[in-house]
């Protein structure tokens, strides 16, 4: 069908009205078994994103942290055969869907992306698995293998090691001090009883945030199962994090690198947290001055502000190439940010920031992920995009001024931060095993997006 120009506008209007799942109202409420739900319909691809978030330290609830415990427990539940039905991962795969598990210092997320017409059965399966978790020996065995593989792949990334060192340096205790992944060899040493106890406590309906986005109807929430009898009521409280004045860390690795991290504003200080999101975008987005210097130096540079409960963390990692040149460029840029940006440059940067913010939350899975993150951190109304231009996040962006940003940078980054310097221990191993990266030919849509990497998180 080819329409003439005269009909174009009408056709566009009509097209806008079709398939408008976004016309369904957003809905928040309380699940039958406790916990909360958030429904944010959007139209687009015919998919439903279903995210189940829990506030739970990845390293466990006991006095002795167990790195990777949360990830292992969540994976073991997904791999276990429930009393009825098939293991969740297999079930989702048969739907043609995708499933991922993310573990952060203070939260765990299980995310499904399924065709929209299978959303109800997927919600049932997800809540059946995690509201009354069953953990079998076979499931735990498969989970140990999967987590060990993930950990081994992560260990190939120099930036991951730098990040772990930064957190360990900046925090004296609390969930953020402990890496969210176990050492591959340590996975087998985590006792089954420890995993079961963690799953029982963390994966309770009352501790859950269920987020639905995509082509979803608010009535789908009814598909969530109630949960189990005897589960503890109420949600977990944030565990305290204790920062220290960190000492610089020097270490060796496969290539040169560095890392810097500072304790930033808590999520409750929304204006300052937004300022740090803006700063991270300004400094580290592709095409920015610091990023270009790093690219020219052959250095992989990544920086972000992570909006944790208290404190947030402003973190930079860099590896490869002439990392010293990248570090010098970053240092210069951070000094310059103590002075207000010129108004025109500030407006350009803000415009680019808002675009990237919205671009990083344009699909159902990313939207569900964003809401889950901010909800478990206790600030769902501050989720970027919530309420559109009149929402709290975008109003905070609009309220930023060059002077405020400069003041905020000085207030937090003048404090002592963590610093890691990595010296290459040996020439790059040309024959070292190198896993394949994702191809990106024209015809291959991107794989499931990583839950990390959202600029405003």
């Amino acid at each position, binding site marked *: *069908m080819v329409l*003439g*120009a*005269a009909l*174009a*506008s*009408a*056709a566009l*209007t*009509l*097209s806008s009205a*079709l*398939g408008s*799942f*976004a016309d369904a109202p957003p809905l928040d409420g309380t699940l039958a078994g406790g916990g909360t739900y958030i429904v944010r319909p*959007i139209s*687009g691809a015919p998919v439903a994103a279903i995210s189940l978030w829990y506030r739970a330290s990845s390293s466990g609830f006991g006095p002795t942290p167990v790195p990777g415990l949360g990830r292992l427990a969540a*994976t073991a539940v997904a791999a276990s055969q429930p009393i009825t039905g098939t293991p969740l*991962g297999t079930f*989702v*795969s048969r739907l*043609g869907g*995708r*499933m991922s598990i993310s573990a952060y210092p203070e939260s765990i997320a299980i995310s499904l992306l399924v065709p929209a017409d299978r959303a109800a059965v997927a919600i049932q399966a997800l809540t059946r698995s995690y509201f009354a978790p069953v953990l079998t020996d076979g499931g735990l065995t*498969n989970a140990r293998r*999967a987590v060990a*593989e993930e950990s081994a*792949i992560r260990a190939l990334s120099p930036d991951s090691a730098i990040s772990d060192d930064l957190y360990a340096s900046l925090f004296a205790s609390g969930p953020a001090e402990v890496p969210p992944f176990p050492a591959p060899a340590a996975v087998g040493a985590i006792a089954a009883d420890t995993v079961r106890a963690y799953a029982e406590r963390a994966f309770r309906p009352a501790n859950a945030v269920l987020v639905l986005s995509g082509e979803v109807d608010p009535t789908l929430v009814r598909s969530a199962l109630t949960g189990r009898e005897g589960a503890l009521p109420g949600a977990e409280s944030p565990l305290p994090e204790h920062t220290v004045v960190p000492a610089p860390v020097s270490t060796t690795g496969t290539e040169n690198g560095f890392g810097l991290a500072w304790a930033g504003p808590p999520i409750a200080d929304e204006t300052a947290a937004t300022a740090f999101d803006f700063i991270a975008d300004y400094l580290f987005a592709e*095409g920015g001055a610091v990023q270009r210097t790093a690219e020219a130096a052959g250095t992989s540079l990544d920086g972000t502000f992570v909006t944790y409960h208290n404190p947030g963390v402003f973190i930079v990692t860099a590896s490869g190439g002439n990392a010293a040149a990248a570090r010098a460029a970053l240092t210069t840029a951070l000094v310059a940010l103590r002075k207000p940006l010129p108004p025109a440059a500030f*407006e*350009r940067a*803000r*415009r*680019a920031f*808002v*675009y990237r913010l919205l*671009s990083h939350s*344009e699909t*159902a*899975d990313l939207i569900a992920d964003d809401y889950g993150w901010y909800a478990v951190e206790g600030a769902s109304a501050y989720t970027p995009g919530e309420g559109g*231009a009149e929402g709290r996040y*975008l*109003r905070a962006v*609009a309220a930023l001024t060059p002077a405020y940003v400069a003041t905020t940078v000085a207030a937090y980054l003048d404090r002592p931060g963590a610093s890691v310097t990595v010296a290459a221990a040996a020439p790059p191993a*040309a*024959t070292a*095993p*190198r*896993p*394949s*990266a994702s*191809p*990106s*030919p024209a*015809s*291959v*849509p*991107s*794989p*499931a997006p990583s839950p990390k990497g959202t600029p405003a998180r």
Partner: protein
Amino acid sequence: MIVPVLLAAIVALAPAPSTPAPAPAAGAPVSLDLGPGTLYATSDAGAQLTGITLVVSAGTSREPARKNGLAALAAQSLLLSRIDGVSLTDRVTADGGSIDVVVGPSAVRFTIEALPAQMGAVSADIARAFANPAIPVDTVDAARAVVSTEVGQAEQNPTTVGLDMVRGAYYEGGAAHPLLGTAESIAELTSADVSAFIAAHYLRGNAFASATGVIDAGTSAGVRAVLTAFPAGSEAPPAIAVRAIGTDGKRIVTHRDIGVPFVMLGFAAPALGDADFAPMLVLRAILGDITNRADVTTASPIERGFDIVYTYDVKPATFDIAINGALLDPSAGLTIVQAIAHNALTKPFTDDVVKRYKDTARGQWALEALTLDDRAWQVGAAVTEGADPATAETVIAAIDRVTPADLQRVAKRYLQHSIVALVLPRDERQ
């Protein structure tokens, strides 16, 4: 203040015509004749950005012999064109958007995304860049540096190396070229080559656009401005010829700085608009399930022993299976794939099996294109192949109609013979 303007209402404001437009299916693109070209628009309620894919028939199949990399270098040179002293990419970023390019055998596609209120500024910048095909030497050199870096990265990735090998063995002419060229070929291209390529192929009749997300009057005005910037003219679509994949079992071998062997099996395959496309998607679901059965969660490509890459935006298409030697013994992987293919050829699938994998294939297709860019690209791929722009919307229904006989017929037609490309660790003694 910017932000309140950025998220303005998206409904088009033009008065209703006396004759209502025919109602398109939900999610289906509407074809709009803008004068200088066609825009295929799919509007999403609730979207906050506009995504546009500008498709230009200037892919590698247009490259002359010995000029491999010209399509990529020309496209990158346009991205780096300077407007009032600033590159197009930087201008678009400052406007509140992004622009990038993907090179394919049939076409290049420029992926443009922007805040709706900024689409006017973004499209004006793009139009200015495309209106001037004479690219200065320094711009071409900057583009060459970018493309060379990407070529170097692609050379380190055994998947892209393997795909290039399959493409080189299967297609003829420019379509057989590596998509980005090689370090050597890029180095030899001149600014005159680039300007001549742009002048020859960046023609109004060679271009169209598809858009998703926020679609309003500004979208069509912006696309019209960009298409108007192209000089008048058109060419016949490039004819993409292929070589028969033989039965000789010949293997292509190359060496790279990798630690483990990597195998790419390349099969001929139906393209997006082909009647066999839906059965091939069901076969993809079967192969994907059997080869990755042990996964607890959905593994990323880096974590898979097998990865399937279905390059269906080229006609004829290829269906490629990558076996990652870091995670799976390549010989065992080859045996598994050959056993599955043999089974599909010799023994009809039962109704139960077909039903199960049709379910999986339906779901995989629903998840195939999620972003504005990917969805706009799907429409563009269909149009490039000469198929209905709404083809992607009809695939799920086509999957529902697949029968066991269809699967066996398609397996016989496409899975009997394959190109075997081996990417092996470089022997340090060489």
